[in-house]
């Protein structure tokens, strides 16, 4: 049979392969468009769903190790992304109603949050997470929640904890993302290479990071040579990410089919909420003098209290605080946020002053943390809310790690609300060393000065105040079992 197109007949495989590749790319692009549309349509309902703070649920890896849902959250105007660690999802039933995801579920003031992170998501991890949503960050408000213990309990994050939060997609976006300056990528690469297990079985990423870190002209030429390959690899990971997100949304149709909850018209009554939180926490923190949650006290501290008294001194605390690599990572994170044009807010839980007094770390030593954090905020022109005025408040954190008690969560909620509405309060003065840490609404202002809050309406329930005997000298005693490992 005579050939109708001799040239085509000569290269049938090439023409067919080319056609298949073009068709395949078109299908993938169409899928990506569909996936982004589905993610965007679902993200507000997803953010208001309890599953978003379920630390063991199937959504966790997709949200924390992927980028598709984070990207969708960045693009949704009524969501405030907050990056943090265990305080975002390590909850007890009695703290749950005060978590911003639950409190802002109906968007009473026009927004809800989108929490990203899990236990031990430190600055280096957040740095990589944000690199994966770099295009969406310009002009976007982002809150970053820091744990003080990252800075004074150890010199750097544990390798297994870092690996437990590692994402190849996020790391690849940082290594091959050209939106960030070369200098920043080099500095970040040097830190990332200090956790070799995460790149050991990822040769392309390892090669890129090593050459970035080296910085010699030859190394940078090698990096440039593999840059296109890295970009393609990241694209494949992004398709996988979209596929995972779409599969989750298909398997949980309630997230996609149910319309977003209508915005609530009821304003939040902050003073009443604070009184309620105080009353709730008093019933869950009544078996110890430190304001620790009962379950924490029973599980970890009640048997070792005498041993932990004055177990730590100022010197190792200040030494660790001074040398912690977490400061390096924090500065990398701030540089990234500035380069990408984001509008960040740094939140830090306060140190549990009552407990650390007992351990032998005085308020003067603890003040060094707040001062250093504020200094960095000033250097980078980034607002910092460190709740230093709650250092002595025994109703703010429910354990020495800084996990938030109901009142602490409410304070977080208020600051996030203010941040979203551009009415963030000016930084409070660092408090003078407090002789005795106290607790309850009598110890703190219910909300920072300068914020506008809804007027109180109706009769407020009166919480049952639990008067403590401050003469028991709690303050000169308080602890930290970690110091057993850190003490030289």
């Amino acid at each position: 049979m005579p050939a109708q197109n001799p040239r085509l007949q000569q290269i049938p495989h090439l023409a067919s392969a080319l056609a298949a590749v073009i068709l395949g790319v078109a299908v993938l692009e169409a899928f990506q468009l569909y996936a982004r549309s589905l993610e965007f349509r679902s993200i507000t309902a997803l953010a208001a769903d309890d599953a978003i703070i379920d630390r063991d649920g199937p959504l966790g890896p997709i949200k924390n190790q992927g980028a598709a849902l984070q990207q969708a959250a960045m693009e949704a105007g009524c969501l405030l992304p907050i990056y943090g660690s265990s305080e975002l999802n390590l909850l007890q039933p009695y703290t749950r109603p005060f978590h911003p995801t639950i409190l802002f579920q109906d968007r009473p003031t026009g927004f809800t949050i989108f929490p990203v992170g899990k236990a031990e998501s430190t600055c280096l991890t957040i740095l990589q997470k944000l690199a994966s949503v770099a295009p969406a960050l310009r002009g976007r408000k982002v809150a970053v929640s820091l744990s003080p213990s990252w800075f004074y309990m150890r010199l750097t994050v544990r390798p297994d904890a870092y690996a437990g939060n590692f994402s190849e997609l996020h790391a690849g976006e940082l290594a091959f993302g050209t939106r960030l300056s070369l200098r920043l990528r080099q500095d970040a690469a040097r830190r990332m290479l200090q956790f070799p297990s995460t790149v050991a079985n990822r040769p392309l990423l390892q090669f890129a990071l090593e050459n970035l870190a080296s910085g010699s002209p030859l190394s940078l030429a090698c990096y440039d040579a593999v840059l296109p390959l890295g970009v393609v690899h990241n694209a494949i990971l992004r398709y996988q990410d979209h596929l995972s997100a779409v599969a989750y949304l298909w398997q949980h149709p309630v997230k996609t089919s149910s319309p977003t909850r209508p915005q609530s018209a009821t304003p939040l009554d902050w003073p009443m909420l604070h009184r309620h939180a105080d009353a709730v926490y008093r019933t869950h923190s009544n078996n110890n003098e430190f304001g620790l949650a009962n379950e924490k006290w029973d599980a970890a501290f009640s048997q070792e209290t005498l041993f932990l008294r004055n177990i730590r001194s100022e010197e190792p605390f200040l030494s660790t605080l001074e040398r912690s690599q977490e400061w390096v990572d924090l500065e990398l994170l701030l540089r990234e946020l500035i380069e990408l044009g984001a509008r960040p807010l740094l939140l830090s839980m306060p140190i549990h002053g009552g407990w650390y007094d007992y351990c032998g770390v005085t308020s003067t030593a603890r003040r060094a943390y707040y001062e250093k954090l504020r200094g960095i905020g000033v250097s980078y022109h980034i607002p910092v809310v460190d709740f230093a005025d709650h250092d002595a408040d025994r109703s703010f954190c429910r354990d020495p790690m800084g996990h938030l008690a109901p009142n602490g969560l409410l304070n977080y909620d208020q600051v996030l609300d203010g941040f979203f509405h551009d009415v963030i309060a000016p930084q409070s003065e660092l408090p003078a060393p407090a002789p005795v840490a106290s607790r309850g609404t009598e110890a703190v202002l219910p909300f920072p000065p300068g914020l506008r809050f809804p007027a109180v309406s109706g009769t407020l329930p009166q919480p049952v105040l639990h008067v403590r005997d401050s003469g028991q000298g709690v303050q000169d005693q308080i602890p930290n079992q970690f110091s057993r490992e850190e003490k030289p």
Partner: protein
Amino acid sequence: MNLVDQAHKYHALWTDRFAQPWLRIVTLTIYYLGILVVLVALHGQGNFSTPPFIYQNF
């Protein structure tokens, strides 16, 4: 007609049909698309799980 003859017949028929360029191109395109689909099915599902670690939650 024995089995060998039948095989020859069908082979000739297939060769004759496949000699048409458009059919050959379409068939090969479907074949390569199939390869791509298998590749996506094998490697499309990303693994976003992370190794477990003990969180010192005190």
